[in-house]
Structures are given as structure tokens and as C-alpha cells.
């Protein structure tokens, strides 16, 4: 029962967030709003981690599995991609690698800069 209660709390937060998302003038996913909302509820102490953590960890740990039907669904899109398949794939591979590198190096560089500054102040 505890698990179901926890799951229902997360579902309810998601539902509220979908409502908020529908009211927003710009497209912003309910799931991300819900993530921010749950984080704020935990941070403020309104919700305790023990009220959501079992179901939360269950969902997060199985997230890769939850994508299986999405991956299967990619077949539907093959006809629209056929005309430009090669540029499509090349662009995706190259941009993904570049984006990864840019983000990873920036984080690493800023962390190092902060550490240097921290040492300088001491």
C-alpha cells in the first residue's frame, strides 16, 4: 500500500504539472514542470523523501525500460526519413558528439576555474 501511495503522489504531481503546462503560453513539458515541482516540495520539506523515494527510485531505475515502446515506434517514421536518410544520420551523429564534448568540457573547465579561485582566496 505504501508503494501505491507513493506512486499516487508522483502521479498527482505529474497531473497538476500537465495542467500547468497546458495553461502556459509557451510549450514546456509537464514532466519537467513536475520534476521542478517535486524538487521544490522536497527542498521546502513539505514532502519528506520517505513519502516518495521508494516509488521514485523504482520509476527512475526502470526509465530505460520505459523507452522500449518509443524505440519500437521509430519504425513508423522510416518513410518520412527515406528521402534524406544519409544527411539525417550524419547530422545527428556529428551534432550529438559535438554537443556532448562542448557541455562536458565547459563543466570541467568551470569547475577547475572555481577550484582555482577557491584556492586563491584561502
Amino acid at each position, binding site marked *: 500500500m505504501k508503494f501505491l501511495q507513493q*506512486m499516487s503522489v508522483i502521479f498527482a504531481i*505529474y497531473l497538476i504539472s500537465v495542467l500547468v503546462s497546458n495553461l502556459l503560453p*509557451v*510549450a*514546456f*513539458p*509537464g*514532466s*519537467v514542470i*513536475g*520534476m*521542478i515541482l*517535486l*524538487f521544490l516540495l*522536497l527542498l521546502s520539506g513539505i514532502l519528506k*523523501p520517505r513519502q*516518495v523515494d521508494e516509488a*521514485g*527510485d523504482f*520509476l*527512475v*531505475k*526502470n*526509465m*530505460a*525500460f*520505459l*523507452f*522500449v*515502446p*518509443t*524505440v*519500437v*515506434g*521509430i519504425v*513508423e*517514421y522510416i518513410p*518520412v*526519413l527515406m528521402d534524406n536518410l544519409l*544527411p539525417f*544520420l550524419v*547530422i*545527428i551523429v*556529428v*551534432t*550529438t558528439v*559535438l*554537443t*556532448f*564534448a*562542448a*557541455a*562536458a*568540457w*565547459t*563543466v*570541467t573547465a*568551470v*569547475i577547475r576555474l*572555481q577550484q582555482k579561485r577557491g584556492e586563491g582566496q584561502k
Partner: protein
Amino acid sequence: MSGILLSLTAEPLFGIVLCVAAYAAASFLNRKLKTPLANPLLIAGAMIILLLQVTGIPPENFQKGGSVITMLLGPATVALAVSIHRQVEVLKKNFLPVVLGCLAGAVTAMVSAYMLSKLFGLDDSLLMSLLPKSVTTPIAMEISRQGGGVVAITVAAVVVTGILGAVCAPLLCKLFGIKEPVAQGVAIGACSHALGTSRAITIGEIQGAMSGIAIGVSGILTVFLAFFF
């Protein structure tokens, strides 16, 4: 295939059982093969696609159960907050690196997609379809639609990008010598949204939490950056 069996596949539980069975088999293969390319998600997806093709079971029948599983992705994204909250000290300490990392990622994703599309001589509608492909589906769809892109192509590009990120994340970390968990997480989330995050979680909780934050931050930044294109 006989009528009775075919009507059975129209039950929502068919798709659910098939997903669980395929994922269990794929996880087993993944443990045996010990290569990051044998990604359980990719193998499970491929097995089901193959099965549907060979048996002639309509994909709509499979997706009756599949959509129930997909429905749980929303709550699962919400639940990332539990991991993020557990890593709140890491986040506080690294707030600036995380935000700047997402910014660098979002700019690189869009500029590189723009330049490569031009290089290939793709038309503007295709370019706009590919521009937002590194962010989460709802945001990417909206940017594509507003810019005159083809939404179906955007959805396909988002999913293929995500699969690529999920499969290659550990490889990319090794290739670029990224050892800092915060940097790994942010980079995975910035380049391959929730799909990549599902893999980041398996690397470590800090990686998963940071990747989760990167989905949101990169998404917001990309909405603003899209005005420049």
C-alpha cells in the same frame, strides 16, 4: 496468423508482456556480451520490431500496451527530482558549471545542426526540423512547428539522438577523457535528453541527477536560442 491469436495481441497486456520479456532477454544478452554497444534498450526495441515484422502483428496492437508503458515516462521524469534532491549538495556546489555546461551544449547543438544542414543543402523546413533535436520531445516539437519544420521528422530525430546518446554515453566519456561525474551527467542530458538520462542513471546517481537537471535547463535555453534562427 490465426484470428484468435491475432485478437489476443490486441489486448493491452500483450504489448506490456512483450516489452518486459524483450527487455529481460536484452539485459541478459547485455550481461553476456559485455560491450556498451549491446544496449538493452536498443536490443529490446530491435527484437520487438523484428517480431512484429515477421509475425505480421500490427504495430497498433503492440502500442496498445506500449502506450501504457510510455505513459509512465512522465511520472518517471518527475521522479528524477528524488535523485536530484539527494544530490542537492552536489548541485549547490556546481550550479554555475551545470548551467554554463547546458548553455554550451544548447548553443553547440543548434549551431552545428544549422551549419551541417546548410552544408548538405537541406531546405529550411528540414533544417528547422533538425534544429531542436537535442532537447526533450515536447519542446523540440513546438520549436519545430513554430519554425515551419516537419514535426514527424523532429520526433524521429529526437528519438534517434536519444538512442545514440544512451548507447554511446560511456564511450563518449572515455573518448573525451571526462571523469568528473557532474560533467558526465550534464553532457549526457544536454546532448540526448531523457533517453540519455535513462542511461546516465545506470552509470551513477550523480550522473543521473545532473542529466535530469540538464534536460530542463537545456530545454529552457533552447526555447530562447531558437529565436535567433
